[in-house]
């Protein structure tokens, strides 16, 4: 049998083009393997060959979703591989969304087997886990070797059209697919076993896990904007110049609360961004591009809104654990409530 031909998708960083300052490069096609493609090729041995690599900037992909998808699908058509691999993306949010979006599109629109891999809190997982196999990885590229070793066997199975076992066995995120099988014991016996385990306080595994829907109902709208106090919150990392509380550039462990008293406009003299997950040049030049204090002050003066709350709350949403973000926000929310704030504008980068 001839070797399976693999096309690999990676971002500008893993492609060696550059960091955040190059995140807006459009997709390009290279011959052969690049960056993590080397490790993937190693794991494939002689079974498959990474024939080409597509490299695309993470911001370019996410800001030009339809265009980027069309451009990349055309490249995939031209190469016409037997298998498409995107990533692994670990906990890089934009990269994960790009990998999962394009892999799902290759699978669905071109009918070519496709797979990707990333960390469980990557937003790409929840967006596309139902459409395709997304292999679980660690949250950083330190986990590259394990990621590749888990990804490659499943990728080969998909390329060969072999049977894919359940998510537990193969190491991918559950897709919500049910498969009929013959159990050794009938349902009533299994249910009683489970109940006995539960009574004894032992571990048991339900056969019918309930999906978790963590949704919050929309809050009631403002009755009167002209008398409302509006607060600004951001995950874009805007902080007073010098980042006095040392909020981390990624995986933030804290948030900051800072006064807006006396600020009618944020400038490169007064504020900057602490965020390490996007090109900081534009936010540093004019922090209003992330936290729109200037226009809100004008609207306050013109009476369009009652008041701009005199504090803003900020953290860095870059690989930050969901549990941390939750904790920050529930503390921020309490502060907003006790300060008599009526509504919130939350900006994200």
């Amino acid at each position, binding site marked *: 049998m001839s070797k399976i031909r693999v096309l690999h998708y990676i971002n500008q960083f893993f492609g060696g083009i550059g960091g*955040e300052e190059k*995140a807006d490069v459009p997709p390009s096609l290279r011959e052969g393997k690049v960056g993590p493609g080397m490790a993937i090729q190693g794991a494939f041995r002689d079974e498959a060959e990474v024939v080409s690599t597509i490299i695309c900037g993470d*911001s370019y992909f*996410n*800001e030009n*979703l339809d265009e980027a998808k069309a451009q990349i699908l055309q490249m995939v058509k031209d190469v016409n591989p037997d298998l498409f691999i995107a990533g692994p993306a670990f906990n890089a*949010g934009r990269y994960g*969304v790009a990998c999962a979006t394009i892999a799902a599109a290759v699978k669905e629109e071109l009918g070519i087997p496709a797979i990707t891999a990333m960390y469980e809190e990557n*937003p790409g997982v*929840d*967006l596309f886990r139902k459409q395709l196999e997304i292999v679980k990885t660690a949250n950083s590229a330190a986990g590259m070797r394990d990621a590749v070793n888990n990804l490659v066997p499943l990728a080969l199975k998909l390329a060969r059209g072999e049977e894919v076992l359940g998510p537990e066995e193969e190491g991918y995120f559950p897709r919500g697919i049910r498969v009929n099988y013959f159990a050794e014991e009938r349902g009533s016996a299994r249910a009683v076993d489970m109940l006995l385990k539960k009574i004894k306080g032992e571990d048991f595994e339900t056969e019918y896990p309930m999906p978790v829907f*963590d949704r*919050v109902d*929309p*809050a*009631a*709208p*403002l*009755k009167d904007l002209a008398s*409302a106090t*509006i607060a600004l*919150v951001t995950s*874009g990392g805007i902080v007073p110049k010098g980042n006095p509380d040392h909020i981390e550039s990624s995986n933030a462990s804290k948030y900051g609360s800072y006064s807006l008293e006396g600020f009618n406009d944020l400038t490169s003299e007064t504020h900057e961004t602490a965020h390490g997950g*996007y*090109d900081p*040049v*534009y*936010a540093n030049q*004019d922090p*209003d*591009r*992330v*936290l*729109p204090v*200037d*226009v*809100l002050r*004008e*609207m306050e003066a013109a009476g*369009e*809104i009652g008041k701009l709350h005199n504090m803003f709350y900020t*953290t860095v*949403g870059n690989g930050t654990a969901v549990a941390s*973000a*939750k904790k*920050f*926000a529930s503390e*921020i*929310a*309490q502060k*907003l*409530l006790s300060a008599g704030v*009526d*509504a*919130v*504008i*939350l*900006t*994200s*980068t």
Partner: protein
Amino acid sequence: MVKEIERTGLPVVHMCTVVPISLTVGANRIVPTVAIPYPLGNPTLGAEEEKKLRERLVRRALNSLTQPVDSQTVFEK
């Protein structure tokens, strides 16, 4: 973060560029913005035009806070 704030009953509008992420996260009022490194600006415009753009987006966000919504809503205009 959006959800934890809204849980207390305060209306929140999420201004962000990658709307699909905001939708999976569970924001109820969403205003799409310009670009990841400058959601509320555009360095290719002159200072005056850029501020007008920011004003338009913020006005749209404020307006969304006055609108009743019963499910996730993207305010395109």
